[in-house]
């Protein structure tokens, strides 16, 4: 009986060590992804930005997750920020914007290089999930992974309604810009 126990213990230990070593070698995280939004119409340009996006890249499974507490988006004008949170994005009800997807190609994040890749997954915003393929540019320099991306979000896709009164001031499609530096999990 004792030798069985020893083997089991050994296996468990080995498995755990292998797993953690594996995960640590392959995962990259960021706590300060810069995420900006930009609405442009002939009447008004509206911009907002947050530096508090968080993200994870797991190289082995090619998983990419990026998340933003929408309340952290800062506007030039505080009243506009309040209206954004209260009337449009409803951040009390839907506090997070999240994208979870899978890279369409395997990228060696341990070697220096530049890659143009697509991430396919689900964009959750304002309580509505939408299947999206989002292009991004990944550059690796000395163990640091930089990710840049730019894409559009149509308000109607996420049930964000714009009243007719302000229709001319807010774009139907909002540009989102993302720029983050991911570091390896140690």
């Amino acid at each position: 009986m004792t030798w069985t126990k020893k083997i089991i213990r050994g296996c468990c230990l080995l498995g755990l060590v292998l797993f953690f070593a594996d995960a640590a070698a392959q995962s990259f995280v960021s706590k300060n992804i810069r995420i900006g939004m930009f609405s442009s119409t002939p009447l008004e340009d509206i911009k907002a930005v947050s530096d508090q996006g968080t993200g994870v890249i797991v190289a082995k499974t090619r998983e990419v997750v990026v998340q933003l507490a929408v309340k952290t988006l800062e506007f030039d004008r505080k009243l506009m920020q309040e209206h954004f949170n209260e009337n449009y994005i409803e951040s009390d009800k839907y506090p997070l914007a999240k994208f979870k997807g899978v890279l369409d190609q395997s990228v060696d994040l341990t070697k220096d290089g530049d890659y143009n890749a697509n991430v396919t997954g689900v964009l959750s915003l304002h309580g509505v999930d939408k299947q999206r393929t989002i292009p991004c540019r990944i550059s690796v320099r000395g163990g640091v992974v930089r990710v840049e991306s730019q894409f559009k979000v149509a308000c109607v896709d996420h049930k964000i309604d714009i009243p007719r009164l302000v229709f001319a001031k807010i774009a139907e499609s909002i540009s989102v810009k993302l720029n983050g530096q991911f570091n390896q999990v140690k």
Partner: protein
Amino acid sequence: MNKFKFLLITFSLLALGLTVVNAQDADSLMKTLNSNVMPAPVEAVFKATRVVLSHSSETQKKHDLDLRIRHHFGDIGGKFGSAHTLYGLDVASDLFIGLDYGVTDDFTVAVGRSKQDELYNFSGKYKLLRQKSKGGMPVNLTVFAQMGWIAREPFSESEFAQYSDRFSYFLQGIISRKISSRLSLEVTPGYLLRQNPSDPEDPNNLFVLGFAGRMKLTRRLSFIADYTLVNGLSRPADLVTDYYNPLGVGLEIETGGHIFSLNFMNSEYIVENNFISNTKKSWNKGGVRFGFTISRNFTLFKSKNKDPDKQSKIY
């Protein structure tokens, strides 16, 4: 055989466990990243700086100027109402024009002028404490101080015997809480100091206690109400004049920069220094009236932030 089975089960469990852990990996890393979120201030407890009659705990945003125009019509019913005055619409019991300016996000200065007594009011409002989410500060505390200056001619020789009799002062603490994203409530203890009350038995200084609330019906439409206890606190019950406690209800419509407020209340007057001490109409006796506010916000200065990702532009 038994040992072999046991081993097999253990291995399969281990393998299964590993795959599950592996599959959750991105999510669990995400969870660790977002585990220590700081309590954030709760925004937009009320839409405007006023509820119906009384002040809310909100202040103006920095460098925003609010132009407010308020109108109280005459009695809907009773002796002064009915069809002869088109249910009070012929009468303007009080008119108010005011400007509120946000010096900082927490400090607002304001000036206004009412028809009643040709009263000019000057006020300061400061947000001392802010409600925070996730176990932080549970309430907002705003302090409000207002001076009133009566500019009209005296009605009699003895009125305003001293020039200082024209001044009144109102101090108030506003304690509010956004209970849910829909419901906000506040309690407002206040103290009014004045000279020459029109009823000689009425004390110069009055302690008052107000209650106010907002219930959001849709994203842009709210039901608002407030009530101020004046009688039954420091005011004697046996005055010659009948005074009533001000009660107002209404709807508030916000359209991005404009706020329209449509109300019914028994108070004839608009500014605290008038309506707290001199509300002589009652909801029971047809003394209720219609009133409205139009409020428009202007951003006076462009923000100086140099961040190109934040700069908004109006063409």
